[in-house]
């Protein structure tokens, strides 16, 4: 039948296009991984495309032996853990009062909060405040200035609003304080929502590049993204030394570092899908 054939032609073209999309996003990540496991000669000759050539893990051994990279890795883990914890705590504690219908000044607070999404002072005044508070070169410069993301706050607030108010009322009749209701009842019940916004906070901290770039001067404190930037993009002296000693194709070592930096992210990726999509959608509904 003509109709059937046209339909299947559409399907074929559509599938090809979509496979193209999937390959275009997958291949770069795969390519980097493959290079990181290949030997120097093959990489320099440029004949590594689909599979590692001369499979070896020397690049990884070099990266781990290096003084800078493991320390940067630990820094990133520390900043991400601390930052995400404070993000979630601040957001949850702020969203709970805002979600209560009769909360004192609720309309005013909401307007004041939403307004900040549109009024942006830019990086310079923010930088000066962080400087004046003496936070430069401390972990708090990465944690406090973005402790609450307005978008995630509104998402969590809506989630709390949609929870049954009977839970809170029942707990109050039983004499529980607001603190107790929040920490022993509401927060445990809102784990899916917290996981969803927590994922965004986690990604934000793990991939953060600009904040450490401007707020941290101490080399010992550099997170992975800054060290990566130095390795990848600038031929700083330290970088040259690194490559010389490694006597490897810089490509392999670069890419080994990238792969290591992607591991946690790619590990949460399959598990996070559900939460990720949910977070994006919740955000879009609230516009």
């Amino acid at each position, binding site marked *: 039948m003509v109709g059937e054939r046209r339909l299947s032609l559409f399907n074929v073209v559509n599938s090809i296009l*979509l496979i193209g999309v999937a390959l275009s996003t997958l291949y770069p990540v795969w390519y980097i991984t493959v290079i990181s496991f290949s030997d120097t000669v093959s990489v320099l000759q440029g004949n590594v495309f689909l599979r590692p050539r001369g499979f070896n893990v020397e690049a990884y051994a070099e990266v781990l032996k290096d003084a800078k990279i493991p320390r940067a890795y630990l820094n990133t883990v520390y900043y991400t853990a601390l930052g995400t914890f404070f993000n979630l705590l601040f957001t949850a504690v702020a969203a709970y009062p805002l979600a209560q219908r009769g909360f004192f000044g609720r309309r005013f607070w909401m307007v004041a909060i939403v307004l900040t999404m549109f009024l942006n002072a830019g990086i310079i005044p923010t930088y000066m405040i962080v400087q004046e508070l003496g936070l430069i070169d401390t972990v708090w410069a990465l944690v406090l200035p973005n402790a609450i993301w307005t978008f995630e706050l509104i998402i969590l607030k809506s989630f709390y609003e949609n929870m049954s108010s009977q839970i809170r009322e029942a707990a109050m009749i039983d004499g529980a304080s607001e603190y107790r209701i929040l920490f022993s009842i509401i927060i445990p019940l809102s784990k899916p929502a917290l996981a969803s916004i927590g994922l965004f906070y986690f990604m934000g901290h793990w991939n953060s590049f600009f904040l450490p770039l401007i707020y941290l001067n101490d080399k010992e404190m550099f997170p992975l993204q800054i060290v990566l930037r130095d390795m990848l993009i600038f031929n700083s002296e330290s970088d040259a030394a690194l490559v010389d000693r490694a006597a490897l194709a810089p490509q392999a070592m670069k890419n080994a570092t990238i792969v290591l930096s992607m591991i946690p992210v790619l590990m949460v990726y399959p598990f996070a899908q559900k939460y990720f999509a949910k977070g994006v959608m919740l955000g879009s509904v609230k516009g």
Partner: protein
Amino acid sequence: MQRPIIEAAGADAGARIKKPVKSRFIGMLKHMRRDRQLLLLFIPCILFFVIFRYGPLYGLVIAFKDYSVFQGVWGSDWVGLKHFAKFFGNREFWLLFRNTVLLGSYTLIFGFPFPILLAVLLNEVRLQWFKKSVQTFSYLPAFLSVVIISSMIIDFLSPTNGVINQFLALLGFEKKYFLIDPDWFRPIYVISEIWATAGYQAIIYLAAIAGINPSLYEAAKVDGASRFQMIKSITLPGLMPTLLVMFILNTGSMFRIGYEKVLLLYNPMTYDVADVFSTYVYRKGLLESSYSYAAAVGMFESAVALVMLLAANFLSKRIGGGGLW
């Protein structure tokens, strides 16, 4: 819901005190007292927004002053619009303006349709596993940092053994050092931006498509509509409200070029096409410590963004599509 509580408290107090202003004040105090635990929980939030969101807005006064570290924000001398005049009179202004407008509009014009197209195509797939896997892979770049994405761009375009150049050589073309060619900066920026964000934004459109009433498709099928007709007459109109909101938001952030990627990708050969307001603010303010001047430039940038957002919102309402508020 807030009203009755205040009024109830006010009426209670009003029985004894005549003056309505005073009674309202007492009602407020009672309300605060009732909500004291909630208010205590709310203090960190207030502090955060006052210090880190409204504080910088106040700090913008330095754009009208000659800020010096020793005199502080308040003690520095007022200079009026000096920094703005200097900026607008600067030869660099037009260069930055042109680059920002071009990068922003190319990203909007070419980048906006892609996620919509991707969502529509994904929606036409009948095999659930295939749809799910393609969708999952398509937003993989959203999990990669801007440093990694930039380094991928640099590696892939490398003139010696980058994949793209090897492919070009295979086809008999000459190898090309794309990243130092000013003509290529904008395409590279826009294409990589689409690559990095299309899958992520498609999630939003897919959710909107999922919200379209399925009986519309069934009715269309009974009437013998083709796939294209259904896309044109059901899917796309169903996407309209979401599309407009996204368009308003994208227009608002159009001139806020992601300075991170520009910072990572530009080099002396491409400064003339790559330098934008935000990278200029970073260089002047944080590298050269001209705080006041950079704050003025940043303020101009934010003001333009706000005006663009309001204009897009106004236009969207005008054509009957509804706005953000």
